[in-house]
């Protein structure tokens, strides 16, 4: 049977001048490893949902990417994580927003899709649901990375107030 997969690890202003050969190789190796994880599921006859989860959980554990471990900092220096998953067979969907401490948000989103009657849970309620479902939690420092903390500090240094930060998104 025919299978196909595509993955991403984020998009943005990526200047080739800022990319050392070592950094470039590290990102490509991480992407290839994640792609290989999805390929293995599909080539073995596994489901598209399992392939998606295999890729995303791997990237969530990789601190180079802005999800799970390595997530960016909020204004208050915390990490708020969001995820969504959808099954094309019947358009079942699950999403979570603004949760803290969940190691693999994509797995929690899948729990919402399968084990709850709802499509999207947010904040403390989503975390309560996660605990009930036995989802893995990690301490806050597990998500911290120096690069992301420096990005927050740079942002705060460049902005006069929080209003300057948020107004451009409104």
């Amino acid at each position, binding site marked *: 049977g025919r299978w196909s997969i595509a993955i991403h690890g984020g998009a943005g*202003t*990526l200047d080739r001048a800022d990319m050392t050969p070592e950094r470039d190789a590290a990102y490509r190796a991480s992407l290839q490893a994640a792609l290989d994880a999805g390929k293995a599921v599909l*080539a073995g006859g596994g489901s598209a949902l399992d392939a998606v989860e295999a890729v995303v959980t791997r990237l969530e554990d990789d601190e180079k990417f802005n999800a799970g471990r390595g997530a960016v900092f909020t*204004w208050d220096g915390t990490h708020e994580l969001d995820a*969504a998953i959808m099954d*094309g067979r019947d358009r079942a969907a699950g999403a979570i927003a603004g949760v803290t401490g969940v190691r693999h948000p994509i797995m929690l989103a899948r729990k919402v899709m399968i084990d709850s009657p709802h499509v999207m849970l947010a904040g403390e309620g989503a975390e309560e649901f996660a605990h009930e479902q036995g989802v893995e939690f990690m301490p806050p420092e597990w998500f911290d990375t120096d690069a992301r903390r420096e990005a927050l500090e740079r942002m705060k240094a460049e902005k006069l107030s929080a209003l300057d930060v948020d107004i451009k998104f409104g």
Partner: protein
Amino acid sequence: TVGAVALDTHGNLAAGTSTGGMTGKRWGRIGDAPVIGAGTYADNDSCAVSGTGWGEYFIRVGVAHEICTRLRYRLLAERDLLQATVPTDADGVPVDYIHSAEFVLDADKAQEEIDAVMGDVARLGGDGGVIVVTRDGFPLFSFNTTGMYRGRATSEGLDQVAIY
């Protein structure tokens, strides 16, 4: 943000996205969450989509659902079925035209539709990218930033990762 979209050997599509949002977010702003329909969508009749970028623009455009809708309608338009009722067989039973192997939307035509939606995001001032796997198994990208960490593979032997 990270994500994946896939078509399995049973013909089923799925999409998933996970993110930490944008640096410095406040007030419970979840506009960068991969909201269903904006940043994530999957429908076996059309495609699976995962997005990354300036999420609040993706919400305003409804990027993921818009791409799926445009691919489904483009397929029907290519077959001159947009103005027709659903074809029926001799017994009057609707034909499953969506799932017929006879109906394939070419990769280049799908790419046009995907690029058009991302162009809409850009016109509003947003940026980012999407990965798409169509129901016919084409793994496609579109982004309006200088780079996007990405990869794709198929059972036919395509296997690539790219950044710029």
